[in-house]
């Protein structure tokens, strides 16, 4: 199964122009609010008519503005989980799910509904109406209804946003095994970084109606193609500089904020001396140097600074460091045990290393 589309759509104040192919896999659409994620799903499903473009599902052209093809929604065999659920208010939870089941055989239908209700932990709510259930229960009902129709393409608009962490993790795992459970191509919209990382073998980063990068999750997270992608993917430490020296793949960047920074750059980038460049490093890749141990083997890009604040985030802490000659703000994420061991707290002065191999120069 496969999906291929190339679409254009304009609204006053917003326009979208996107192109993508996906095979038997889960592609994650990731981007800020208002980027046009839901719009893409709506165009693929046929809810919103694109201004122009082509959509092929499974080799079948379901929409082609130039060829005048526009297959009705019901024949597209697309499962759509709406961001606001779109549950039928006049049907109970059970009826909503049963509505999606294609089989007409009664026993089969009941069995399938029961199975889905169990997977989605909805048992006991069979007879409740949508206005009588909680937000998360609504989302699970909607998800069950979508899966019930056994679509050949699954479009999921933030399927886990209203779910608690346990169900979410369970469903994520289910979805990650989606090829076994529901062997379909899937597009999943999320604004959750962790979710994007966990679920997306492939991630398409969208901003302002356009894809800024489409690639593997490692590419998107560690090798962002643009400054925006770097920002969205949580690579908070982004700096500008100028190429000061090149020695093979090793490049020295003169950064007004941090000083001279050394890094590796693949030769194909073809940087020339003096060229302005942007580089970044992820917060969790910044190494705090233990004061008691000295530099040891670590010698790359040592930066000294004052801890401005520390914020607990559950399993990690985030430090803000005022560092370098121009007082650049560095964000550092550390495991809690490191925090404790080093006794880090606001006001302390520490040294960190931006290791060469952790720095990424945005092409």
């Amino acid at each position, binding site marked *: 199964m496969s999906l291929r589309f190339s679409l254009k759509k304009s609204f006053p104040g917003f326009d979208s122009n996107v192109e993508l192919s996906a095979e038997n896999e889960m592609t994650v659409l990731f981007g800020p609010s208002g980027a046009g994620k839901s719009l893409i799903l709506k165009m693929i499903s*046929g809810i919103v008519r694109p201004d122009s473009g082509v959509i092929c599902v499974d080799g079948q052209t379901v929409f082609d503005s130039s060829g005048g093809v526009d297959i009705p929604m019901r024949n597209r065999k697309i499962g759509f989980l709406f961001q606001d659920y779109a549950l039928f208010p006049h049907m109970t939870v059970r009826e909503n799910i049963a509505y999606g089941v294609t089989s007409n055989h009664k026993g089969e239908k009941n069995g399938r509904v029961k199975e889905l209700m169990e997977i989605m932990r909805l048992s006991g709510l069979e007879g409740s109406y949508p206005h009588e259930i909680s937000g998360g229960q609504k989302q699970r009902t909607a998800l069950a209804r979508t899966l019930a*129709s056994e679509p050949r393409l699954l479009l999921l608009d933030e399927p886990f946003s209203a779910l608690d962490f346990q169900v979410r993790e369970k469903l994520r795992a289910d979805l990650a095994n989606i090829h076994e459970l529901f062997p379909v191509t899937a597009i999943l919209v999320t604004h959750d970084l962790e979710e994007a990382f966990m679920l997306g073998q492939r991630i398409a980063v969208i901003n302002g109606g356009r894809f800024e990068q489409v690639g593997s999750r490692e590419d998107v997270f560690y090798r962002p193609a643009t400054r925006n992608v770097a920002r969205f993917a949580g690579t908070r430490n982004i700096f500008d500089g100028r190429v000061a020296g090149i020695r093979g793949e090793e490049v020295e960047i003169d950064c007004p904020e941090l000083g001279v920074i050394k890094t590796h750059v693949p030769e194909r980038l073809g940087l020339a001396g003096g060229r302005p460049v942007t580089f970044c490093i992820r917060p969790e890749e910044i190494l705090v140097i233990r004061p008691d141990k000295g530099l040891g083997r670590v010698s790359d890009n040592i930066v000294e600074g004052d801890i401005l604040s520390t914020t607990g985030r559950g399993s990690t802490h985030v430090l803000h460091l005022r560092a370098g000659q121009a007082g650049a703000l560095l964000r550092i994420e550390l495991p809690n045990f490191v925090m404790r061991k080093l006794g880090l707290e606001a006001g302390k002065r520490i040294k960190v290393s931006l290791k060469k191999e952790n720095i990424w120069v945005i092409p």
Partner: protein
Amino acid sequence: MDLFPLYLTIKVSFTAAAFTIAAGLVLARLMAKRDFFAKNIIDTLIMQPLVIPPTVLGYYLLTALGASSPLGRFLERLGIRIVFTWKGAVVASIVSSFPLFAKPALAAFEGVSADLENAARLLGKTEFEVFRTVTLPLAWRGLAAGAVMAFARATGEFGATLMVAGNIPGLTQTMPLAIYDAVQTGNAFAANVMVGVITVFSFAVLYAAGRFSRVRF
């Protein structure tokens, strides 16, 4: 009391309401989801039977369906006689009550969320299934209101019925005609009794309809 008028009224009002509702559903559905130039015009035109005095409406219907009209002659040839039969009363009631159903039905259909209909379409349902399982139930409140009004109006239809069906006791004399006759004869008591009967009848039907059509969600 002669029970025939009551029997006829029941027959006519249910038949007329059924036709009105069926035709109104089709028209309202066709109009609801599109925006075309003539829409507003049609929407306004279907109100006209309300504006024209029923007797005059009946006069027009008689002219249109009667023996002297091409349509009337055509129907005659098919063996269908409308004028001076109970069918005439049905036609009169349909014309009078049509706007009362079609208008709220249109409003109700327009109010149904397109998202929910799309959700049903994406689950593979045909347009008819979408209509039956989603649009109809969601428009239910407005449709029920319209149906109840159309039924009540059909039950009470007098002016146009008089012209199209005539007032033939035992054949086309509905309750409203009988009531009118009683009033004209100065038999206020009989009139009041019959008004009581028609009130009780329509009350029972409308009350049952009201209970039955209760929206639970």
